[in-house]
């Protein structure tokens, strides 16, 4: 009887430890992926800003959405899935802002008929 209990406890402990470490591995992978994405997103935002093409809701302090700071906050709270989703929006907006600035390189009064 006693032996059995110990065995069970031992087994349970082993299982828990194993499961826990698997989970830890999973979350550290998520974290690494997030950090890579964050660096990429930040680089794209700087690129857009360098041509005066940054959009409002990426990181401006008075924006209600602030996708980049919101992504960082979500990651801090452990919600990497949400963080990644927000980073994708940041990347999209930064890339579009850059493209837009490039497309507008020769903008001038000629676009307005004079």
């Amino acid at each position, binding site marked *: 009887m006693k032996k059995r209990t110990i065995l069970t406890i031992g087994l349970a402990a082993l299982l828990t430890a194993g499961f826990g470490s698997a989970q830890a591995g999973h979350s550290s992978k998520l974290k690494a992926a997030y950090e890579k994405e964050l660096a990429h997103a930040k680089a794209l935002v700087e690129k857009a800003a360098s041509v005066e093409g940054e959009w409002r809701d990426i990181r401006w302090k008075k924006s209600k959405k602030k996708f980049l700071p919101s992504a960082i906050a979500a990651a801090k709270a452990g919600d990497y899935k949400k963080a990644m989703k927000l980073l994708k929006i940041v990347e999209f907006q930064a890339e*579009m802002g850059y493209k837009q600035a490039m497309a507008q390189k020769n903008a001038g009064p000629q*676009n*307005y008929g004079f």
Partner: protein
Amino acid sequence: MKIKNLRITTAGAVLLAAGLVLAAQASASQSALAKGKKLAFDRKKGNCLACHQIEGGTQAGNIGPPLMNMKQRFPNKAKLRAQIWDARKRNPHTIMPPFGPHRILSDKEIDLVTDFIYNL
């Protein structure tokens, strides 16, 4: 007699069911139109009223043409959708925001707005 009765009842039931389905469909499209209208009027979404007059909308702008008789102006609904999606295709200097490419509205939202505008 019994059999005949049964037939009539069945026919009635089928008709009733068909009627219910039709009614359900009609109300679904009504609610879709209402959703499209809400998106079109919302300042943070389509904000079509910023530039276009639309029946039922207040404080409309007059930058673009009033939105009416849309089925005559756009017999092809796909063309109307394309215009809402990205008006730059037809006029590269347009003031109309590129709702699709800049993801101001989602695909689904543009469908709803298109349906609403098409029925004006």
